[in-house]
């Protein structure tokens, strides 16, 4: 009966405590979805961190007698999992900082845990503005936020694409709904008409009922706030309905996989990105080459931001010279003109990066072509 419970418990605790404590290790947490449908984003962040950590270790010990190590955890882009994983990192005294989470919803849920544990968290991709407005002093991000991205996207759609009748779709996630709401506000302010704003379910596949309805409304632009799997399906199903309309999306569809899934139907789709075209930046050249040769694949959209986030942490740890979360946090907070590969990073009082550059891309010949800055 309960004996088995007892034995089980003992066994489990035994096994769990085998996660042996080695001497002389400083750990950086890396949390994101590394299984499931958004695994590519999480793995991309992990790869960036691996490059940064290996480079740092190759340069010698970070703190005398200590080597850097990565603790990679999977939050399955589920906020509850994110909380559990955050507690796990918080309870490991060797973890000094965290790169992640990838998804805004997860960062939002996990931030209070890090705050309480005095653990520095730098997200390369959680762009929802709410997170930093909550006043967590441990939260930082290297990407721009959606309250910069979406209004600029709306400005671009209004002035350059001359969108006057817009339909807005979002995927009902923290990120997707956030960006779609901001877009709607701004484009209304600019004077365009919004024909409707509807949500879809993530992991649903059939959007033709919604698209049939939108087709009858004859909009000249559809804005989609969401991730690439649904984005690709939307674009394809619209074409199948004989519905030719301009599409625009946020950084959630600025992923190579979007083009792989939507194929020729992706042509002409616009998207904004929370940063400029990394591949054209001189400083990023070495990083991009390293990434491609080491992992045999093209880097994802946020990997450069994750790389910078990791380097800010490593730099702060090196300057601090000891395994002390509070000191490292203070050091990160004091970051001044950090020369990263995406630009010179500073954090404002809320922890947001001050770079704030929004680039616009368009799919041409099955690749993202840089159109220019949104403003």
């Amino acid at each position: 009966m309960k004996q088995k419970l007892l034995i089980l418990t003992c066994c489990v605790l035994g096994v769990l405590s085998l996660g042996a404590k080695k001497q002389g290790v400083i750990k950086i947490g890396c949390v994101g979805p590394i299984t499931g449908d958004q695994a590519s984003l999480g793995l991309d962040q992990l790869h960036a961190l691996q490059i940064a950590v290996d480079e740092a270790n190759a340069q010698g010990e970070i703190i005398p007698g200590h080597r850097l190590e990565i603790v990679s955890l999977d939050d399955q882009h589920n906020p509850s999992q994110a909380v559990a994983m955050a507690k796990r990192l918080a309870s490991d005294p060797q973890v000094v900082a965290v790169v992640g989470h990838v998804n805004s919803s997860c960062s939002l849920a996990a931030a209070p845990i890090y705050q309480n544990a005095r653990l520095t968290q730098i997200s390369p991709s959680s762009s929802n503005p709410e997170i930093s407005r909550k006043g967590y002093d441990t939260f930082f991000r290297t990407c721009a936020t959606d309250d910069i991205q979406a209004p600029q996207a709306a400005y671009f759609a209004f002035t350059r694409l001359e969108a006057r009748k817009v339909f807005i779709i979002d995927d009902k996630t923290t990120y997707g709904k956030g960006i779609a709401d901001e877009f709607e506000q701004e484009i209304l302010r600019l004077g365009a008409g919004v024909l409707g704003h509807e949500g879809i379910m993530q992991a649903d596949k059939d959007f033709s009922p919604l698209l049939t309805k939108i087709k009858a409304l004859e909009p000249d632009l559809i804005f989609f706030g969401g991730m690439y799997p649904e984005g690709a399906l939307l674009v394809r199903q619209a074409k199948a309905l004989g519905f030719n309309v301009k599409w625009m999306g946020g950084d959630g569809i600025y992923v190579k996989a979007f083009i792989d899934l939507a194929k020729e139907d992706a042509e002409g789709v616009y998207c904004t990105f929370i940063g400029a075209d990394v591949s054209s930046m001189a400083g990023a050249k070495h990083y991009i080459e390293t990434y491609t040769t080491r992992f045999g694949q093209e880097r994802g959209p946020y990997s450069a931001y994750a790389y910078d986030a990791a380097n800010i942490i490593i730099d702060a740890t090196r300057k601090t010279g000891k395994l002390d979360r509070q000191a490292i946090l203070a050091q990160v907070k004091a970051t001044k003109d950090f020369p990263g590969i995406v630009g010179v990073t500073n954090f404002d009082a809320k922890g947001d990066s001050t770079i704030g550059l929004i680039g616009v891309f368009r799919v041409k010949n099955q690749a993202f072509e840089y159109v220019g800055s949104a403003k």
Partner: protein
Amino acid sequence: MNKRAITAYQKKGKFSRWAMSAVVLLILVVLPFFNHNEYHLEVLVSAGIFAILVLGLNVMTGYCGLLNLGQAAFFASGAYTYALLNVKLGLSFWVSLPACVISSAALGLLFGSCVLRLKGDYLALVTLGFGEIIRITLNNMDSLTGGPNGLTVSHPLIGFADKSFDFGIKSMPYYYLTLLAIIVIVIITNRLASSRFGRAWVAIKEDEVAAACMGINTGKLKLLAFCVGSAIAGFAGWLFAGKQGFVSPDSFDFITSIMLVAMLVLGGIGSIAGSIVGAVALTLLPEILRPLQEYRMFLFGAVMMVMMLFRPQGILGGVRILEEFRPENERVRQEEDEVLGEGLKQ
């Protein structure tokens, strides 16, 4: 075995059961003093909350034979009731408890009174649909529930005069709170099982028509079982929301409901100890398998399947039936299982 032997057996069984429970309890109480690891405690707290949910499910499915594939909906109702009371009205964790239990019981009553005339798989399917409806509703009612962003709620706080103790994000206080909660629920469900209601439920499970002929008001009693089960789930939801400090709809998806049924069946349907063992085993298993990374859910499925093939009545299945009803275990248990199968089939 004659009657006296049975009584002796039961007495002996009772004593060893008490002794065993006391030992297990003692170990669980002192455990945190030897293991300070937050993560380990956190996993145990989750296991404990699942155990409470499974105990609730056991009342519906184990005692009364009502297969519920939407237990997560009642779990969600408890959690969101606390979250909303806390966020909108500023009520504290402890004050919200009755509301959480009552709201879930009311939801169970409302839903149960509509669907309980369905039987077996049809009932299972309707509860499944209901679970999904609740989850999607929570996800879509942005203005009230915060939609996918969820709601951030306060952790429990105990205050005596000018001193106060915040449970915060440490796992230890929740560990003891959960332990206490499990003890309470175990006592309640245990008393219920041997009460007039409990015996009526089992009679309904065995043969509803016969039970009705014996003068049992089957409709009311089924509804009662459903309400008790959902109230317990609401209680677990309250605990979960307080512990997590955050609620969002993805904690209450279909997979959660399915896992609860799996825990119950794996542990042994109708058995209190079995419910707890099942919940603990299926919560710990994926965590133990975590080092295997992407292979872990695969192995998890395999363990579930193999376990059932070798012990279809569950780890601790048949104990209650053996002790309370008929002594000649093997044959009777088989018969019992067939009856259970037949009953659910109808």
